[in-house]
């Protein structure tokens, strides 16, 4: 190994391109293959409008996954995301109470609740030392009840159009394709923000450090507890956003987020995140979520029965992780 003479940024574009190509996450290839598969089944999906529809459909999961990754890289889980989504939808219907004027502060309140839940998760994990699996499992059960207890069992009001706009509405007129879904806009913004936070700020690097070696992190001056809490808060915020999108797309529905938490974890793992922390890529995780959704769509188009879809999903997740484990052992 010769001593390095030229730091990365001085290398020629071409070299960097090659290097980039070499360590591109496998999930992107998988995703492309899936999209091609979908295209062969039903080309409309690859036309702008069709593809935007796919994105719009996948948006809630992709957003939730982005948040989930923040927690996973610190070596934790957040199982409470799905029920927080449901809580958001139910809460919105109660707070807005059929009056469009209420929408905006209602959304603020919902984010407030989300942040509170995140803080709670974080504090329980960081200061009570409760393993995040248990802490967020308890939170999952609690939130399930809380939402319905709050509204007395069923959503109380309609979701007004200005609330549903985010999940359902379009930006029109729009150049080239005449209309552009707000959901995708939100998705782009959230993804960009998440990727920025994760790749461009101290936060992302420190979260990785905490997940990789908590003791060393502490000795390097990182306040581990604070970062764990931030991670859970971010996860909760994305859950609220996902809830708003889901509620907007589908309308009032007391269990809008059911099962989303596990799908988000699976997606992050498909994106190469390691469950005990220290490794993960935001872009790849979000791509993983899209891949999962694309997989469902493809299996749908192939007319495969839902049960088979579950099975395939299970196999793919195991396969992906097994392959990653196998590769990391080989490189050691």
């Amino acid at each position, binding site marked *: 190994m010769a001593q390095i003479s030229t730091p990365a940024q001085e290398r020629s574009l071409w070299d960097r391109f090659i290097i980039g190509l070499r360590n591109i996450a496998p999930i992107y290839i998988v995703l492309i293959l899936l999209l091609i598969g979908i295209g062969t089944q*039903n080309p409309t999906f690859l036309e702008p409008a069709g593809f935007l529809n796919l994105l719009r459909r996948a948006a809630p999961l992709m957003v939730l996954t982005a948040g989930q990754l923040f927690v996973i890289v610190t070596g934790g889980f957040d199982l409470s995301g799905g029920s927080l989504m449901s809580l958001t939808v139910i809460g919105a219907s109660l707070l807005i109470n059929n009056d469009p004027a209420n929408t905006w502060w209602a959304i603020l309140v919902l984010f407030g609740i989300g942040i509170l839940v995140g803080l709670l998760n974080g504090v329980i994990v960081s200061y009570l030392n409760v393993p995040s699996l248990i802490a967020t499992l308890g939170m999952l059960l609690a939130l399930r009840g809380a939402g319905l207890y709050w509204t007395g069992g069923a*959503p109380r009001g309609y979701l007004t159009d200005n609330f549903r706009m985010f999940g359902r509405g379009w930006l029109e007129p729009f150049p080239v394709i005449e209309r552009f879904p707000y959901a995708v806009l939100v998705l782009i913004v959230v993804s960009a923000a998440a990727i920025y936070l994760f790749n461009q700020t101290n936060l992302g690097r420190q979260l990785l450090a905490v997940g990789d070696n908590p003791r060393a992190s502490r000795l390097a001056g990182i306040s581990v507890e604070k970062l764990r809490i931030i991670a859970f808060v971010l996860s909760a915020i994305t859950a609220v956003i996902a809830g708003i999108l889901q509620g907007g797309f*589908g309308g009032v529905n007391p269990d*809008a987020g059911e099962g989303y938490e596990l799908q988000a974890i699976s997606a992050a793992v498909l994106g190469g995140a390691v469950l005990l922390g220290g490794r993960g890529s935001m872009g790849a995780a979000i791509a993983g979520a899209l891949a999962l959704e694309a997989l469902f769509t493809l299996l749908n188009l192939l007319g495969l029965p839902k*049960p088979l879809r579950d099975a395939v999903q299970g196999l793919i997740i195991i396969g992906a992780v097994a392959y990653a484990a196998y590769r990391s052992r080989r490189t050691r």
Partner: protein
Amino acid sequence: MFFKNVKRPWFLIFALVILVLGLVACGGGAATTTEEPAAEEPAAQEAAPTQEEPMAEEPAAEQPVAAGLESDAAQVKSEFFSQEQYDRSMRQMTMTPEGPADQPWIQMLDNPEMVDTSQYAKEGPYTFCFSNAGVNNPWRVVGWTTMQAEADLHPEIAELIHVDAEGSDEKQIADIADLVASGNCDVLIVSPNTTAALTPAIEQACEQLPVVVFDRGVFTDCPVSFVQPIGGYAFGEAGARYIIDNCSEDCNVLALRILPGVDVLEERWAAAKLAFEDAPGINVIGVEFGDGDNAKVKSIVTDYLDRFGRIDAVWMDAGATAVAALEAFEDAGQPYPIIVGEDQQDFLVKWQENNLSGIAPTFPTFQWRTPIIAALHIMNGEEVPAVWRLPQPVITNENLDQYVQPNMPPLHYAMCGCENMPDFPERWGGTQ
């Protein structure tokens, strides 16, 4: 450091094992999923199995269903269809029920055989006990609220003890045992979570005290009275008939279902399928399961619109997601289809706003009032019908207006028969 060597063979072996499992899955692949029928959405809750032929397992349960999307429906028919009950339902739909027309919850159909309950007669005040399968969806919430309101109407009911099984058979069995053991109950009202599973528990309860079962049945006739509307076939047939009568030649029908395996839902589809089969110009372009999830339903409909360009009518085995289906048409900029919904407010409102051509068969929530009334009869030693068959009104374009209540929550069920009860509408979440 030791044992460090990678076990590549293992990796391959497992890839294989897993693949095999996958294939097995395909092999057995029916078109469908079965999630908790209880936990998820209204119609599953409304599931009302046929309570006649005690102790009979559903015939087709014997052999597992193995079929793809298309053959699936046929399979289902053989599995759940019972000609004799189909005829019974059709007959009852045409009957005029006995009893006050403005109080359908005390009407009876098919002049039922009455049971003498003098052995149970006793002085008030009474403690009624109610083992509830769950309040885990709006339909049940409305029903439960209505039942409480009904109980409040009767001063002689000192207390209505409510235990909730949260959609778990195991829990409900234990709950019933608790209630019986506590010895507080003068009468036990049960809304079973699933038919087969609760039968043993209810049989045990019957030995101790009078039992009233409603909503879903059990495979035993030990309960003093069983309260139930006409049932699934009528529901399914009404919707299908409306489509057939109103859809022009060459009519693309999309059948949206919640999930398979729940008897009442299967009955609804079986009846509809029967109707569609011998109807000219009707082609069912697909039968899909939406899990009662708005988002899923919307996606499915969108995909079908992409694929077939035009859908003329949508038949649903439960209306909970009707609005989502309609929105898919809006989002795709397509004209509204002929739609079969249910008495859910959000659908009725949309129906009225856009004066769609639609129909809403109902599985009325007013049936939650009847068990209390039946139980009171029993306490007073008055006769009650062994099978209290309630009417099953259908909302049509004609009578739509009298059911639309914009002041009620979107997931309120109009057929609650609660409009004249105290504290309406606040108690049901509505506003003046």
